[in-house]
């Protein structure tokens, strides 16, 4: 079984003041250090247990790729140690070692051997690789004739020809068309079910929350947050908005959920409630019931423009629906400090059975990345139960009709 233990790892690049100083350091006696170290990763500690799926998030330059490179062994840590137990496969650079003039089949053998397979193993795996890549007769044509999607398909098929004990996936790699993306993700999911340890680097919230047990947020070379994916992703989102050092606050709510509140604080959500048609506050809604989300906002300073956004998230943190008053063209202008206004948002609770949360955003335009007054996750939690409808699956209710013609 595959596990990864990263102990106090740091990575630094050597920086020489000029071209000659490296030569001087190498040749002159006395072991004088003539370079400065630039640390890109510092004090990284984490453990991925067998069978666990961990997501790594962070902005560009946070050190994600460097960390992965050290885990896969292409580059060595400057400090600390990394212990990897089990056969590791990395889907970081697909198609490495493909030669355009050779046929797909030749390249499967070549890159397969580079990944550590023997020829006999590849002979055995070849039918599966061909079948999974679904490139048909192209397998015997030179790779230069392939579309980039076909190359990716073939490369993915080789890299995942056998279930690894540890799989490292860079989500930025999107393999071919939508169909193949689903297919490749299914394969990753299947590996996971069979016990593969997964390390996923992603920018996409949904991917992390859908598949990971835990998430690690890297920021400026250190672990900024580690824990339950939704909480980490909320913190990450808040951090993205946090360009001007706004406050980011996380508090643990009842039931262990972590609420993140961030922003510059010119306005705040004072009250939030889910009401039924009669205007009575509820915590549980029936599938399809008409409900009103009532949000009272108070301005603490004069604000030129105010946009309220909200999102309804399921228990995994995926947004089921979200919009804002910029999109609905209901931007409020010139709000005086101290004044407040109430938003009444009515909709039918056409959700699947489960637990939902509402996040709110008070901003000045379409995104929360500029003028983020307040961003509040888990502002409200409610449940949806099915009383009046027949049983159904999924995360939303479509009042579908089935007609049978025989």
């Amino acid at each position: 079984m595959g596990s990864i233990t990263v102990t106090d790892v740091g990575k630094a690049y050597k920086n020489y003041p000029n071209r000659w100083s490296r030569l001087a350091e190498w040749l002159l006696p006395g072991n004088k250090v003539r370079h400065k170290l630039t640390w890109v990763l510092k004090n990284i500690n984490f453990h991925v247990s067998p069978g666990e799926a961990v997501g790594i998030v962070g902005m560009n330059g946070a050190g994600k790729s460097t960390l992965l490179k050290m885990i896969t062994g292409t580059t060595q840590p400057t400090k600390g140690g990394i212990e990897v137990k089990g056969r590791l496969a990395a889907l970081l650079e697909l198609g490495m070692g493909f030669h355009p003039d050779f046929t797909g089949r030749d390249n499967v053998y070549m890159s397969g051997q580079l990944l550590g397979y023997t020829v006999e193993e590849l002979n055995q795996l070849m039918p599966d690789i061909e079948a999974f890549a679904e490139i048909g007769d192209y397998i015997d044509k030179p790779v230069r004739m392939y579309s980039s999607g076909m190359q990716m398909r073939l490369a993915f098929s080789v890299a995942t020809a056998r279930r690894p004990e540890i799989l490292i996936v860079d989500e930025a790699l999107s393999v071919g068309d939508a169909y193949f993306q689903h297919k490749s993700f299914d394969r990753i999911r299947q590996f996971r079910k069979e016990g593969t340890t997964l390390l996923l680097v992603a920018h996409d919230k949904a991917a992390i929350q859908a598949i990971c047990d835990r998430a690690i947020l890297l920021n400026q070379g250190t672990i900024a947050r580690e824990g339950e994916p939704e909480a980490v992703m909320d913190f990450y989102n808040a951090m993205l908005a946090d360009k001007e050092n706004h406050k980011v606050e996380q508090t643990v709510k009842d039931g262990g959920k972590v609420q993140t509140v961030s922003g510059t604080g010119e306005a705040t959500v004072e009250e939030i409630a889910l009401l039924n048609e009669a205007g009575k506050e509820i915590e549980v809604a029936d599938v399809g019931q008409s409900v009103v989300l009532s949000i009272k906002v108070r301005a603490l300073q004069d604000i030129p423009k105010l946009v309220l956004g909200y999102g309804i998230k399921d228990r995994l943190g995926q947004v089921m629906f979200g919009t804002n008053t910029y999109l609905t063209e209901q931007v409020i202008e010139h709000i005086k400090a101290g004044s407040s206004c109430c938003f009444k948002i009515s909709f039918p609770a056409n959700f699947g059975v489960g637990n939902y949360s509402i996040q709110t955003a008070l901003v000045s335009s379409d995104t929360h990345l500029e003028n983020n007054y307040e961003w509040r996750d888990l502002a409200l939690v409610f449940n949806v139960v099915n009383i009046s409808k027949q049983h159904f699956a999924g995360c939303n209710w479509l009042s579908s009709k089935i007609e049978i013609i025989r």
Partner: protein
Amino acid sequence: METLRALWSYRGFIIGSVKRDFQSKYLNSILGVAWTIIQPLSMILVYTLIFTQIMQAKLPGVDNTFGYSIYLCSGILTWGLFAEILSRGQNIFLEHANLLKKLSFPRLCLPITLVATALVNFSIILALFLIFLIVTGNFPGWNLWAVIPLLMLQVLFSVGLAITVGVLNVFFRDVGQAIGVILQFWFWLTPIVYPISILPEAMQNLISYNPMVGLMAGYQTVFVTGEQPEWSRLLPIIILTCFFIYTGMRLFKKHSAEMVDEL
């Protein structure tokens, strides 16, 4: 020991790379593998024609029309092997920077592949040369076996030197540029095109410090006269081979981790 085991498990990759290297050169040509033969063959023919027929060059002390041509070929062909390993070797890690940065595999696979490829090319050339010798009735006889230890020594020397400069070149790119220049001078400071006897006495003594001189003289003796080489003249190159193999491996061990950061 562990390195050796890792290399052994990647033997498939090494063999595959050699095959691919070889194939890729001729993959899209009509004549294909025939080019491997045409190129060295034309070289041997050109030298023979120009020097024996047109210029009527004679090797001092050798009474044979083909003498100078054989002398020339035995030096140039073997020097070619040395130059190929060295000039490709100094660039080997830079050339495969992408692979090194992105995949984890025993890095010594790369120089091994390089040497194997060079040896395959060379053996074709050598075979042609031997055929030429048989056809012209100049086959050196049983003393030909002496070529084997000479070649082994030469390959070891080239590999040690190539790994040394290959690693250095990653950190100091001047090394690669310098090697090109050095190889030029080195070639002309080794009696390959000319016999050593045409040099003044003082120069002859000086040039004997060149480690390639003994080696080249060895090949020339075997091929031209069919006699045993002067083994004692190989001492400088044996010492240098040990030195470069040791230095190369030490540099590689010490800096291979850092290398990826510099690519």
